[in-house]
Every structure is written in C-alpha cells, then in structure tokens.
C-alpha cells in the first residue's frame, strides 16, 4: 500500500475536488445560462425564462446547421466505415513491406494539427482543383471529415479482429461456405459491435469538428459548430448559443452511453 499521511490524502483530495470543479462548473454555467432571460450571459442570473429555448426551437438557421452537420457526419461515417474496415483487414490479415507506413497514413490526418489538414485541403480545392474547373462545393467538407474519421473505425475494427479466433472461419470454409457467406455469416457478426462503435465515434468526431470545417465548408454553409462559432463572434444573442450548447452537452451523453453498452455486451459474450 501507498502509505499517505492524513495531510497528504487531504491535499490530494483537494486537488481532485478543484480539478472536478474546473471541469464541471463551466459546463453547468452554460446550461444554467440557457435559462436566463437576458440576452447576454452573466452571473448571477437576474431572471429565469425559457424564452431562448422557444426561440431556438423555431430558429431556421439552427435547423439548417443541424441538418448540415448530420449530412456531413453521415457521409463522413460512411466513408470511414468502408475505408477503415478495409485497412483494418489488410493490416490484420497480411504481412507486407510498408505496413507501418500504411498505419501512419491512417493516423496522420488526426495527428497533424487540424489547421494543417484544413489549410492543405483548402489549398487543393482552391488553388489546384478550381483552376482546372472542378468545384468540390459541399462535398469538400464531407471528403475532409471522412479522411480524419477513418482512424476511428480502423482502431476499433483492428482491435476486435485481433481477438477473433481464425479457426472459426476455417471451419466455415471447410464446411463448404463461399468466402462471401463466411464473411456475412461468420466474420461480420464477430466484429459488428466494433464496427458500430467505430461508426459512432466517427460520427461524434465529425459532429464536433470545427477547424477543418472552417477551411473546407463552402461559403454560406454552416454546420452546427460553425453556427455556434459565428454566434460567439457576434455576441448579441449569447443566450441562444447557450441553448444550442446545452443540447450538444446532453447529446454528448448518447455516444458515451451507447459505447459503454456495446463494450459491456461484448464482455458478456466472451
């Protein structure tokens, strides 16, 4: 045992309490300010009201931004699912020269600062593709998000494939199943939960992304984070932003909850 004096335990406890306060008080302030009647956030709150919640509910730009975020998130997730699963199978089932490089390639879009990825793609769209008559428009954003989401699916599927017992697939082949049947009936069900978890993480990552989006979104198109950011820059309706932010905080519990359910489900089956 680590024998800590009472004083040391107290000091540690205090540091933990301050850290937790540092993490949660600001979020709490956002939630509580969304119920403020005032236009601007302040403390203490003078008057409570749900007026901003009602305003947010019928606000057209918020709906449009939310819709864009969902479309981009779904598009990026679809790209990430296909490409991430393919790379995971390649790296797990084969040994080849340059394996480490392929791994690095998948991680790179998320390892490099977002501004580098954003500026690089913006540069390609505007200085290379536009002069030769290709307008990526809305797809530029989906392509960008798809690129940095691949790693989420890749990591999850690869980790699961490493734990799959290969003799089950061999048994399936010996019993006369075609490769497609083996994949559909034997392989896929074994990594399905990792596939879904990867999809949720990819969607969550895309939904939250700001910096790459700033540089790749076509003019006049807002995702939800871009809408929040633009409102923060013009802080005359701060309380409306607090409502949207509160919804984002509440929605962020969904992926945590689902991924924990999936993790537990996978543990129970073993």
């Amino acid at each position, binding site marked *: 045992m680590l024998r*800590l004096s009472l004083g040391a335990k107290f000091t540690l406890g205090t540091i933990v309490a301050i850290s937790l306060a540092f993490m949660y008080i*600001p979020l709490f302030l956002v939630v509580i300010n969304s119920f403020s009647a005032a236009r601007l956030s302040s403390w203490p709150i003078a008057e409570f009201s749900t007026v901003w919640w009602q305003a947010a509910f019928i606000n057209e730009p918020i709906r449009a931004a939310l819709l864009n975020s969902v479309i981009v998130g779904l598009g990026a997730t679809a790209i990430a699912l296909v490409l991430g699963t393919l790379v995971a199978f390649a790296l797990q089932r084969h040994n080849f020269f340059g394996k480490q490089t392929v791994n690095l390639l998948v991680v790179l879009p998320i390892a490099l*600062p977002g501004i580098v990825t954003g500026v690089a793609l913006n540069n390609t769209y505007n200085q290379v593709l536009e002069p030769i008559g290709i307008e990526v428009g809305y797809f530029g954003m989906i392509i960008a998000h798809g690129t940095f989401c691949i790693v989420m699916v890749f990591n999850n599927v690869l980790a699961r494939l490493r734990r799959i017992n290969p003799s089950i697939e061999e048994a399936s082949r010996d019993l006369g199943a075609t490769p497609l049947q083996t994949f559909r009936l034997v392989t896929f069900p074994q990594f399905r939960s990792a596939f879904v978890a990867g999809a949720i993480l990819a969607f969550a990552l895309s939904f939250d992304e700001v910096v790459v989006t700033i540089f790749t979104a076509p003019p006049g198109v807002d995702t939800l984070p871009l809408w929040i950011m633009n409102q923060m820059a013009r802080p005359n309706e701060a309380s409306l932003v607090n409502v949207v*932010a509160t919804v984002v905080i509440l929605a962020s519990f969904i992926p945590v909850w689902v991924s924990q359910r999936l993790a537990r489900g996978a543990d129970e089956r073993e």
Partner: protein
Amino acid sequence: MNRRAQLSALLALPMLWLIGIYIFSLVMLLVTAFWVTDPFTSKVKPGFTLRNFEQIIANPAYATTSLRTLGIALAVTVLSILISVPLGIFMAKVASPKLRAILAVAITLPLWAGYLVKILAMRITFTEEGFFNSMLGPLGISGPGFSIVTVVLTLTYLWLPYMAVPVYTAIRQLPPNLFDASSDLGAGAGFTIRTVVLPLIRPAIIAGSIFTFSLSLGDYIAAKFVGGSTQMIGSIIASNINLNPPIAAAFSLVPIAFVVIYLVSVQRTGALERM
C-alpha cells in the same frame, strides 16, 4: 484468390483516398509555399520563390507568435501533468472502489461535451461580469479576464482527459507490492512517488503529452474567443489563407516542424515503443 491480389484489393481504395487526396494535399501545400502571389490582384501563380519564407523569418511578429504558441503548448502540457498525477494517485490509491468508478467516468465525460461548447463555457466563466469574478471578487481576487492565462487554462480544460486517462491507467497497473517494498524499506509517500511511481508512469505521461502538446500547438479558436489579443500560429495562418495563400502555406510548416521535433525527441527516450 491469392494473398497478394487479396491484399491489393483491400488496400487499393484506402490508399487511393489517403495518398490521392490527403498526401497529395500536404505535398501541394509544401509546393504552394514556394509559389508567387501577385501583389495587385492577390492571385496565386505557380513559380519558385523563397520570398514567402524570407517574409516569415524577417517579420518579428511571426517569430514571437511561434515562440508564444510553443510556450502555450508546453504550459498546457505541464499543467495537465501537474493535475493528472495527483488525480491518478488519488483515484488509484486513495479512493474507494465506488468513488474510483465515479471519478473514472467523471474525468472522461467532459471529453465528449463538445469542443466549442467548452470554449463557450470558459468564456462565460471568465468574462468580465462572469462567474469567476463575481465569486472571487469579494475576496479581492480578480480573474485573468481574456488573456494568455485563460488560453492556457482553456486548452488544459480541452485536452486534460488525454493526459489524465493514460496516467490513471498506468498508476492503476503498478503492482501493489512495489509500494509495499518501498514503504518497508523506509521510504515515505513523497519519496515513493518521486522514485518509484514517476519513473514507471513516464511512458504514459509522454503518450499523453503528445496529445496535449500537438493539439494545443495547432489550436487558435481558444485564442480567438478567450485570449483577448493573444495570437497563435493558427491565427496567422487563418488570417492569411485568403489574402496570401503562399504565406499561409509556408507558415503552416512551423507547427508541423514543432510536432515532428517533439515526436523525434520523445522517440529517443524510447517511450513510443512502449505505448
């Protein structure tokens, strides 16, 4: 189907995407850094000039901003370590199993709460008439306002889980008999932490620091919203991307260089292999 063909079939599409779009874009970014901007029309023309790099080196504002950003990224990393180690020790060695489970969820949950939401939250907390000033004002303490200090605090807030989770996991995995041995040999808790715990969790700290360092280095949204007049590397890249793309391209090589230097110096400690 033979194995070679199978492998090619698996890798063709992902590699086409990653190399054809992403690596191509990074290379074009590097190339654009040598292109010429027409000073009158601000149209970019292919060519070869070192002027963009000269401008960056000659302009002292660019150098100070690079150093300031580096300082911020290092400060965020140090602050994250200073919070994560006591937090990890408390969770792994002091807290009851139930409290430990609650704390484990509590430190990972904010990771999901949304990047901009957290910046907004810090903005509300530290604004002039905000929570911090109104709570501590009566004690004669006034908050940092929107300044470089708030940028460091906000970035720490954003990236802390990347440090706290691996550090906690590493401390939990330390064999308990090491602590028994250390205390049987007469070491006090502080001495044990310094000579036994810290050296053993160093790989976890380094792994976490890669995230806190490189994520802070590339950020500029925090500086924009809670930094007052604080500029970071990203602020300069963002403000040049439309006016002078070659300068933005040239300057974006600075954070890449910092991250690569950091990774290489970390790799020499051998910590990456043990990640």
